[in-house]
């Protein structure tokens, strides 16, 4: 289980996340929803310590993965990120590497040399991301020749190849058409078996149909979290109801 407790994040002393406590159970897809600027991406990026790379970012509180503190002083953020993978809003394959090299980049650039191991990991990751059939004959091609949806699935394959325990997805479908979106959602359901999946989305239909749990964030604060069905059919807070029915945000 991934969990955060009283998580606060500031950028240059400006508070963006104001103490969020949330749990993301295993074998569940959790969605984080909320209006633009509410801090959903900021929250997501705290889970794999991406804020360590931003000068002026200050993270306080606790994030644990299976009861181990991710922000402990003896934890190496580089190793944390191998356990907690991330997919971004805009597909970002490495344009100077081939499709195959992209998939194995996380392993190879971390020092894995064994060709058989790399090959096997690449095939498995591409199959898990439901893109194997589309790229198996063009593994040496440039990834920029793929469509947007294929590029995003390639990025998911790249994240899966390092065998993470958690997959963080930051609005992964916002640049994709409905068919490509459906493919990624299907993929999420299959990944749920073995990964904790956390998805940030501004698309409420997506949260409703593709997640098990939903958290609603507003102005850096957690308003409500629970089973997706409960949130969308009988929210406890009127603010949640207003947001999901489109009255604001």
């Amino acid at each position: 289980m991934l969990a955060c407790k009283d998580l606060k994040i500031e950028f240059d002393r400006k508070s963006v996340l104001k103490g969020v406590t949330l749990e993301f159970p295993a074998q569940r897809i959790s969605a984080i929803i909320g209006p633009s600027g509410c801090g959903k991406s900021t929250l997501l990026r705290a889970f794999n310590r991406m804020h360590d790379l931003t000068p002026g970012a200050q993270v306080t509180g606790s994030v644990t993965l299976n009861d181990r503190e991710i922000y402990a002083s003896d934890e190496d953020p580089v190793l944390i990120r191998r356990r907690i993978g991330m997919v971004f809003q805009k597909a970002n394959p490495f344009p100077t590497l081939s499709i195959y090299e992209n998939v194995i980049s996380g392993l190879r650039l971390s020092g894995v040399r064994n060709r058989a191991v790399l090959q096997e990991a690449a095939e498995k990751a591409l199959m898990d991301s439901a893109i194997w059939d589309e790229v198996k004959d063009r593994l040496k091609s440039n990834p920029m020749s793929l469509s947007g949806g294929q590029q995003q699935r390639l990025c998911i394959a790249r994240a899966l190849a390092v065998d993470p325990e958690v997959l963080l997805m930051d609005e992964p479908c916002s640049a994709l058409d409905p068919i490509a979106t459906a493919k990624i959602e299907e993929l999420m359901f299959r990944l749920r078996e073995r990964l904790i999946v956390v998805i940030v989305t501004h698309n409420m239909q997506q949260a409703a149909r593709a997640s098990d749990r939903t958290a609603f964030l507003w102005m850096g604060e957690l308003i409500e979290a629970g089973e997706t069905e409960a949130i969308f059919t009988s929210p406890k807070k009127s603010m949640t109801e207003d947001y999901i029915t489109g009255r604001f945000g």
Partner: protein
Amino acid sequence: MSQSHQLRKLHGHIMEGVCLLAALAAVIPLFAFLWHLVAMGAGAFSPALFTQLPLPPGEVGGGLRNAIQGSLLVVGIATMIGIPVGLGAAVFMSEFAKPSIASGLRFSCDVLSGVPSIVMGLLAFQMVVRPMHHFSAFSGSVALAFIMMPVVVITTQEMLRLVPHSLREAGHALGIPAWRIASSISLRAAAPGILTGAILAISRIAGETAPMLFTAFGNPFMSMDPKAPIATLPHTIFTYAISPYEDWHRLAWGGALILVLGILGATLLSRFILWWHQRSLNS
């Protein structure tokens, strides 16, 4: 109304004509100098120019073999110092340094790149020639490396700046160590631009004359010893051009043509690399 309109149109045509003349004036020196150079230098072009050593004044013939090979040696050593240091500094500034430190270093490089080359020669004289007590090819290389470093830093940094931040972020999110992101992702994405900048930096220093006067010093004989004075093309052109001998003037023109053709070739090569890279990205 229509009269003022006509006047304005006339005014427009005149201004356009003035600008066209200015544009022509700007490129005339290039063509005039190329024409002159080819006319004067082509006569000196022969296998002997590349294979023979200069003869004593008064004897007709000879070539610039010592200066050509000397230039290659001095520029080669300068490149081996200047490119790695410049590249390393640029990577540090773009990938690792805090923004305040990076901008301080960048400002220093901007200042350095504007320092006159003769001052860099003086610096190399102080740092290398005086301790060694004699002129040397190596001191010339040091002077050229000083000139080259800020140029390499600036172009490399500009090219690294063009690499999208999202690629570095993707690397971090995969748990790739920072130095590997710098070497295998950022540098690789910027490689064609960096290579182009390096070629231009090499061609820039290949023509430097002033710092050679009191570092490499020149040498009428064949020498490939980095510790000894050495002939270089720009310095030999200078020496021969101001000499009173007709045949040395001819060699100076030949040398100038070699130098310009080399620089032109390097510029074309760098353009080709960029074009080729652009094409491979689009296909």
